[in-house]
């Protein structure tokens, strides 16, 4: 690939995402880069030129020119940045409408409950995937709760906090959304690449905030359908505990699946 | 006071516009939790309205006669005379500060700290006010022991002083 094309095709360092939103994010990174790299280079270049060309050399007796203003120049460097930010805003507004759009008819709807310090994913039939990380060993990935979802379909996530502010963050989704008590937050993701993606809480929530991790298992629609068919209604899959326990829907609604965790949700 | 009042009233005007725009947009598209932002903007421009009106009144009071510091061609003689009372040292600020710190401790550890804090604070208020007790017709250069405090300092520009 031609180097220039290659450079322009990058996101100026940002990783690619795996959702349908990736296209909008990438567009904005590029736009930001196209403006900020030249501007940064020009400003740095002017500063460097000034200190090299106009520095005081020992023994020099030059009287520096005492000009104080230049209205046309000042007007220019006021108006051009205004135009630039207007352009960025326009493109951004369009992207934002797409990224925050919530569908009325998603394929899959999952409730994501965050608590100190783990995650609980509740599916439409009441099936629960719940778990916390290993508070003693952050390298242990075996006991993390898994959020299972299909690829290439609109998955609607309704994020709820059971105690303090948390944030749902999956790096490859290029997306963060807060879990705030009292705020109903719903967003859509449509993942184009099946795979296993790590996720993490992204808002300080207490002592074991660093350990509040999860995994997202994106399966093809067929695989997902098969998996979902195998989850009895109101069953509970606990991370680190083999098998799925049969639960009762009322018990789950009352939070009974929290017993056994070091930190039950506080109201 | 022309520039001063215009600066503050300019900020006031901007904040009013900001509050109105935000109010309208929140009413149309925003969430109810953003009403706190409207409230804060309203208090902000009200604060500047207060300050700006005071400064404007000070400007208008002078009926266009500029103060020495507002005249482009003023000289040091124009500002001659007693400026103000500038005490060199004072124990009362640290006493009052201690009182307020104890008051803060009361918020953390228990009301009994407030007892100490209140005594210190109001004692300091009394001391502070009486320290700057001086009469209008005292001239700088007179015997400092006759002033309100033995270490009071007056600063003036004294181009006309003869003694």
């Amino acid at each position: 690939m031609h180097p220039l094309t290659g450079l322009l095709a990058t996101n100026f360092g940002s990783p690619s995402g795996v959702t349908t939103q990736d296209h909008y994010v990438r567009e904005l990174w590029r736009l930001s880069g196209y403006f900020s790299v030249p501007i940064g280079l020009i400003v740095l270049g002017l500063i460097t030129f000034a200190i090299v060309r106009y520095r005081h050399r020992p023994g020099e007796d030059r009287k520096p020119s005492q000009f104080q203003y230049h209205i046309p120049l000042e007007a220019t460097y006021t108006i051009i940045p205004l135009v630039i930010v207007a352009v960025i805003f326009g493109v951004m507004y369009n992207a934002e409408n797409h990224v925050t759009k919530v569908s009325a008819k998603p394929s899959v709807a999952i409730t994501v409950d965050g608590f100190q310090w783990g995650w609980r994913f509740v599916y439409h039939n009441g099936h629960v995937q719940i778990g916390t990380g290993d508070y003693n060993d952050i390298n242990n990935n075996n006991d993390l709760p898994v959020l299972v979802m299909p690829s290439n379909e609109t998955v609607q996530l309704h994020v709820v906090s059971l105690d303090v502010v948390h944030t749902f963050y999956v790096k490859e989704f290029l997306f963060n959304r807060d879990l705030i008590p009292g705020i109903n937050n719903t967003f859509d993701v449509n993942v184009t690449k099946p795979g296993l993606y790590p996720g993490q809480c992204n808002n300080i929530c207490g002592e074991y905030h660093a350990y509040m991790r999860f995994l997202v298992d994106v399966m093809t629609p067929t695989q997902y359908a098969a998996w979902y068919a195998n989850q009895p209604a109101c069953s509970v899959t606990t991370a680190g505990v083999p098998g799925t326990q049969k639960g009762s829907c009322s018990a789950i609604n009352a939070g009974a699946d929290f017993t056994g965790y070091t930190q039950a949700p506080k109201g | 006071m022309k520039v001063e009042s215009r600066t503050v009233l300019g900020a006031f005007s901007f904040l009013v516009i900001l509050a109105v725009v935000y109010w309208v947009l929140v009413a149309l598209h925003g969430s109810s939790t953003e009403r706190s932002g409207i409230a804060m903007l309203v208090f902000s421009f009200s604060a500047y309205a207060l300050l700006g009106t005071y400064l404007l009144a000070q400007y208008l009071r002078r009926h266009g006669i500029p103060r020495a510091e507002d005249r482009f061609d003023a000289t040091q003689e124009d500002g001659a005379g007693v400026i103000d009372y500038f005490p060199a040292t004072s124990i009362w600020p640290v006493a009052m500060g201690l009182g307020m710190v104890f008051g803060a401790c009361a918020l953390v550890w228990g009301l009994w700290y407030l007892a100490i804090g209140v005594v210190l604070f109001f004692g300091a208020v009394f001391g502070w006010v009486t320290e700057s007790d001086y009469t209008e017709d005292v001239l700088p250069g007179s015997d400092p022991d006759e002033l309100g405090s033995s270490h009071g300092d007056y600063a003036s520009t004294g181009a006309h002083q003869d003694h």
Partner: protein
Amino acid sequence: MTILEERPQLPFEAHEPSLMEIVPGPRPRGIVKFVTSTDHKQIGLNYLFTALTGFLLAGLMALVMRTQLIVPNNHFVTENVYNEMFTIHGTIMLFVFAGPFAFAGFGNYMIPLMIGAPDMAFPRFNNLSYWLYLGGFSLLLAGFLTNNGAAQFGWFGYAPLTEAIHSPGPGADLWIVGIGLTGLSGIFTAVNIITTVFTLRAPGMVMFRMPIFVWNILVTMFLILLAFPVLTAAMALLWIDRHLGGGFYDASKGGQPILWQNLFWFFGHPEVYIIAVPYFGVATEIISTMSRKPVFGYKGMIAATLSIGALSMGVWAHHMYTTGAVLLPFFAAMSLLIAVPTGIKFFNWIGTMWRGTIVLNTAMLFCLGFLAIFLFGGITGVILAQPVLDFQVHNTYFVVAHFHYVLIGAVMAGFGGLYYWLPKMTGRKLSEKWGKLGFALLFIGFNLTFFPQHDLGLRGMPRRIETYNAGMGWNFLNELSSIGAYITALGVLVNVWNIFTSWRNGEIAGDNPWDGQTLEWACSSPPPDHNFEALPPIRSERPVWDANHPDMLTKVGH
């Protein structure tokens, strides 16, 4: 002959009668002076020392954090201690160091000098401000001595984590009152400085002849008056929640946790401009003096600063883009707009240097460091202003990198201010040799610490995590960043060493070692009581330059 080496002969000194009549009184020394003096110069020095102490303490906490993060799954400190570290590091750096160092340290010392006033309008009130500040700082630190430790919820303390049930113990309350006291101190300083600037200027010192530094501090004070009362209110509500059974931030009692975020950030965003704007002023003074030119676009600078101050009141929710509860387009537009006046200032600084005679001493080097670093931080700010991009990097190390670039960029200008103004305050210059070494170490160390953090954020590393999984691809960058932190610490130590040794042994500075242009260079170093024995005629924004260089008079305003 180089003008800078010679002590300029001010034409208005010596034979003219002294313009100040001072009633002599007993002059205190030592600890009594420190405690009771109402002289703005002493109080300014008090603030500078205390702020620098805070800087060193918070810097130590940063080193603890970087040591904990140098390898994955590290156990250098426990989770709670780490959370205390980043909370108190942020709180001290912002409330105790960065803001007060500039507006209360340099501001208190320099503003009366720059406008030709004998002192601040309310000298005892000024002293009170300092004690409230020191008291607040001490209470913040006292949290470490309590059983549950100091506050552990981050410097912005989101409810409901700060409620009594999730953060028991007095550490959180000490955080609340510590910030409350330093906030009160700031408000009192603002009242004092605004009154001084509006009523105590010397004859001929009209508003548009004041140095840019004074204008910047004035705008900062306006922001303080609007922002800090909101913070105090937010803290009061939190205290009521914690101690009186209130439910302002408790969803189970009908309150709204997000109310805290709205209140806090309405304060929090102006706060970062309260921090940055004074340093812009310091940089302007140094750049214009060291280039031996007037400020380019003086009125444009003032307009830009006023715009930045005004706009900063309308951008607070860009810290809340991911809450899903704020008007994204409004805040995006305002946040993008604020880049424009900042850009204007940059071009004006370049215009000030253009065709000047630039002396590249340590003060100027620090300002150049400020320009380079703040430029980069400003650009990442434009990226973060866009909600869609913020959705990706919110609360990751990308944000940490951004704000350290803008904050430490500003602090670089502050260090330049030390090299520029300490000779006026102490009568002795700092060592250029040690200064340049300190600058180099700081610049290299800082970039090594924080540049990799941009990539760390893009790779998904969240902030405020005490450790991380070894397989995330974050290991090498964390190592680099931690090594950079140690180099930065070395740079700080070199500068502190320089300050200590030069205080008594530095080269004598004289009245005007840099051929400065503004009024503070018209008096002796250090200045006498009530500042001025004589004042030059004030016919432009550069009265001392006009007096010293009648062949290069300032045209505008003359």
